[in-house]
């Protein structure tokens, strides 16, 4: 195992397309179902779309009650993940050694892009597709395609271990 120095990385050598590895279907389905339940709760109880980017952009701009529920949702998001990490500590070790400037750049692009595109994987991907919104289906296809292209460039053309 190489330790995160930028450069060539054998883990990501070309295997042919769709060479499946590390598939965890059960936890994916259970976690996904919980996300669907959360989206249902928020719309049924509060009439709000559970789009994380929308909730986050709103936190930065709104005041009073309209900011309060957003802060609470985000606090719950962190706490909910925290509970699972506490119950099952090996569930996830933070990635170490990846370029922090690249992570910062990623954050800026995600913040800007989700503000302009009006949603992310949850708002467009989960809630929008569930409502059969054409706008959200198009958005989801767009970020899946550029996401895959972006990973191809970073891992396979630039050879960065991400």
């Amino acid at each position: 195992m190489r330790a995160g120095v930028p450069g060539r990385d054998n883990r990501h050598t070309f295997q042919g397309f769709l060479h499946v590895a590390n598939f965890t279907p059960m936890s994916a389905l259970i976690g996904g179902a919980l996300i669907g339940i959360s989206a249902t709760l928020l719309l049924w109880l509060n009439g709000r779309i559970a789009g994380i980017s929308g909730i986050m952009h709103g936190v930065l701009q709104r005041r009073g009650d309209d900011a309060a529920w957003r802060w609470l949702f985000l606090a719950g998001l962190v706490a909910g993940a925290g509970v699972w990490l506490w119950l099952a500590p090996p569930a996830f070790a933070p990635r170490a050694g990846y370029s922090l400037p690249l992570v910062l750049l990623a954050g800026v692009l995600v913040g800007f892009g989700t503000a302009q595109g009006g949603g992310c994987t949850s708002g467009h991907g989960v809630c929008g597709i569930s409502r059969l919104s054409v706008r959200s289906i198009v958005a989801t296809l767009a970020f899946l395609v550029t996401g895959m292209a972006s990973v191809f460039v970073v891992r396979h053309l630039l050879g960065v271990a991400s």
Partner: protein
Amino acid sequence: MTRAAARNASALAAGLVFGLGLAISQMVNPRKVLDFLDVAGNWDPSLALVLGGAVGVAMLALRFVLKRKQPLFESEFHLPRTTKVDRRLLAGSAIFGIGWGIGGYCPGPGIAALSAASVEALVFVAGMTLGSFLYQRFAAPRS
């Protein structure tokens, strides 16, 4: 309990369930997300099932929810008003995807990963905040 308090409590509860779902499905692990997007490497299809599981549940449940006249603790459903597929939607989503592929975080997992005291998550969320401000300051349509 007032309606405002009920709204706040349900937002917190919905956030908790969402965070739990992201952690159980391991979407808080950026490597797992990148392995899904890496169709030319060791491909991990898990994210597709997370999305599929979430959409499956929400699609069924929202059919009933949206038949109601109004939400339980609120006077109206706050659904997106625009249905236009335009350049802004495509450009924004494309930019988001590029950032997603560089970092392995979309907004939910980026924020949820703060719970693991991950330095990366902190840097990512700071970047996201900056990106949001940059958009508002320089690119948002003036109303």
